[in-house]
């Protein structure tokens, strides 16, 4: 058994463990997966950072007016980060129409969402602040389904819901739709074991005082939402998830935009891991599960990528040389014995893990149909597993190379 086999076995064990954890936690909690505590109606502030969002901001503001929550208890704060389009004009039209909308404009573009969000949170009058992307549309009942989690436990400082995709026009959007569904369920499973590691800035509810006490969002981190949750957890707070609370967000339509977004997430995740690495095995679930889970995933991915590249280069070199030698000698390039392969124990483990992964994908999408019935194209699911998932290692390489070169760009 060589190094590649050992890494593969560790990878298989980790994968199998996560699948088992998912399965057991789901089975033990399946009846309450969509449950949420009832909430008491209290004022909430919705903070929307805005930069060149003319296309979406109007629709988002319309959507907020349809929320199943008294408008008199909702304060909407839009922080414009020096938009170059006509976002401000559109916002002003809505301000004239609805009383609960407020616009703050910054003098200089900050280059990210953290600073405008911080400005909005500091200006918020309510005890609870909701961060919302200008291109995310919460479902009418979503606030009620999240607020109860903050109200029932003073230690809960952040709550997220199910972030689903709004459009599925391009191939990459179809892939993201499957991914977002699975991720939402996975996040709920993590919630059931007190391990929510991110409340996506696209739609999250915070205890304002806790966020201010923690020092607000970190502008130097490319995933300020992950970093915020880790900081809150490190200070003894909790993060929760309400699967029933839905919001639909616009996802990148073009492959390049998707690639850049994932690069940013990848860099931000690693930045956060490096910042909090000293808390490993400390601070409850943060140090005992979230940090080791991130660290093991990162190490296995990097190791896996290097071994994969090594194997590819080695095999290409062998095939190249065999072809070169065979052409010189006028010998067969391929013989029947090359096609006869005996499966090894590694093949069995690989096949078992793949089948379980496939089952988990279908199982998760099946559960998510209770939240939002939709028809799934089996071909898309297969492409998600075979193509989309295999692009991630390439993003990992790109993001790590950017980190090494010091390129931290929103």
């Amino acid at each position, binding site marked *: 058994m060589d190094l590649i086999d050992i890494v593969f076995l560790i990878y298989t064990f980790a994968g199998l463990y996560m699948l088992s*954890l998912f*399965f057991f936690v789901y089975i033990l909690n399946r009846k309450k997966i969509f449950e949420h505590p009832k909430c008491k109606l209290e004022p909430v502030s919705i903070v929307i950072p805005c930069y060149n969002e003319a296309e979406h901001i109007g629709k988002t503001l319309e959507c907020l007016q349809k929320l199943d929550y008294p408008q008199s208890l909702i304060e909407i704060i839009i922080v414009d980060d020096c938009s170059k389009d006509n976002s401000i004009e559109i916002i002003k039209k809505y301000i004239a129409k609805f009383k609960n909308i407020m616009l703050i404009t910054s003098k200089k573009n900050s280059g990210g969402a953290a600073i405008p969000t911080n400005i909005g949170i500091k200006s918020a009058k309510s005890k609870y602040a909701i961060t919302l992307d200008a291109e995310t549309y919460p479902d009418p009942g979503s606030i009620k389904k999240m607020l109860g989690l903050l109200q029932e436990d003073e230690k809960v400082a952040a709550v997220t819901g199910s972030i689903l995709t709004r459009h599925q026009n391009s191939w990459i959007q179809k892939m993201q739709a499957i991914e977002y569904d699975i991720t939402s369920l996975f996040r709920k499973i993590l919630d059931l074991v007190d391990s929510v590691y991110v409340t996506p800035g696209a739609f999250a509810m915070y205890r304002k005082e806790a966020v201010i006490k923690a020092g607000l969002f970190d502008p130097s981190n490319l995933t300020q939402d992950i970093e915020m949750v880790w900081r809150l957890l490190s200070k003894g707070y909790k993060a929760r998830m309400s699967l029933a609370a839905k919001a639909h967000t616009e996802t990148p339509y073009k492959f390049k935009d998707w690639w850049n977004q994932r690069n940013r997430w990848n860099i931000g995740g690693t930045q956060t891991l490096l910042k909090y690495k000293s808390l490993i095995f400390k601070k409850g679930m943060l140090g005992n599960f979230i940090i080791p889970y991130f660290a093991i995933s990162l190490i296995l991915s990097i190791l896996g990528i290097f071994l994969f590249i090594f194997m590819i280069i080695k095999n290409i070199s062998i095939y190249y040389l065999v072809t070169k030698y065979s052409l010189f*000698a006028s010998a067969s390039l391929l013989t029947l014995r090359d096609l*006869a392969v*005996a*499966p090894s*124990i590694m093949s069995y483990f690989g096949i078992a893990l793949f089948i379980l992964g496939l089952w988990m994908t279908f199982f998760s999408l099946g559960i998510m149909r209770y939240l939002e019935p939709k028809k799934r194209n089996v071909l898309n699911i297969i492409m998600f597993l075979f193509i989309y998932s295999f692009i991630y290692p390439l993003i990992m390489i790109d993001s790590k190379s950017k980190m090494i070169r010091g390129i931290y760009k929103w």
Partner: protein
Amino acid sequence: MVNTKHAFWMAFFFTLAVFLIGLLVGIFVENARADNIQNVLLDSEINLLDEQLKENAIQEFNISCNLAKNSTFNFADKIYEEALRLEKYDSASKMKDTLTIFHKRYDLLRILLWTNSMKIRSKCHSDFHTIVYLYDYDTRDISKKAEQIAMSNLLLDFKYKYPQETLLIPIAANLNIESINLIKEEYNVTNSPVIIIDESMVIRSLPTFNGLENIVFQSNNK
């Protein structure tokens, strides 16, 4: 909410159990393959003994040389096929290292086959050619591995073209078997792969198909 520690431990023990079962199944499968190879090997060893007895029978009972030649060729083909199966199992073997011992035993069988074929050729004045292919077993050197694959394919093509005229005997040269070391010394083989034709000619680099044809059939004319 379920007790968190409870779910984590449940998943851990479940994974451990599945993993251990998987490893046990792996050991079982590899054992079954080793048993299978061992049975086939025992059968081949009996066949070889039979070949050696045939050699005596040729002398004592004046048995047809053609029959002896065909029998040697059939035996060579048989152990070649078996060795291929062993190679296939060996590449899939992850848990155990017992298959290397079978490689050694097959190599010994092939050396015996080689010496046997020499006797038959000399006594029966047969016109077949013995092509002994010495290679490195389980080499990590990419260039050598590629050269061996190409050479092995070339020899297999040659065997398919001249099934009755050539006896192909591949032998791993790096398994530290004394008799192979002696052969290597005799033919001054310091680096594999090499091809020894009719115990007289040594090809130390990859030949072309035509080149090999010329060398093999030239050696016949000598």
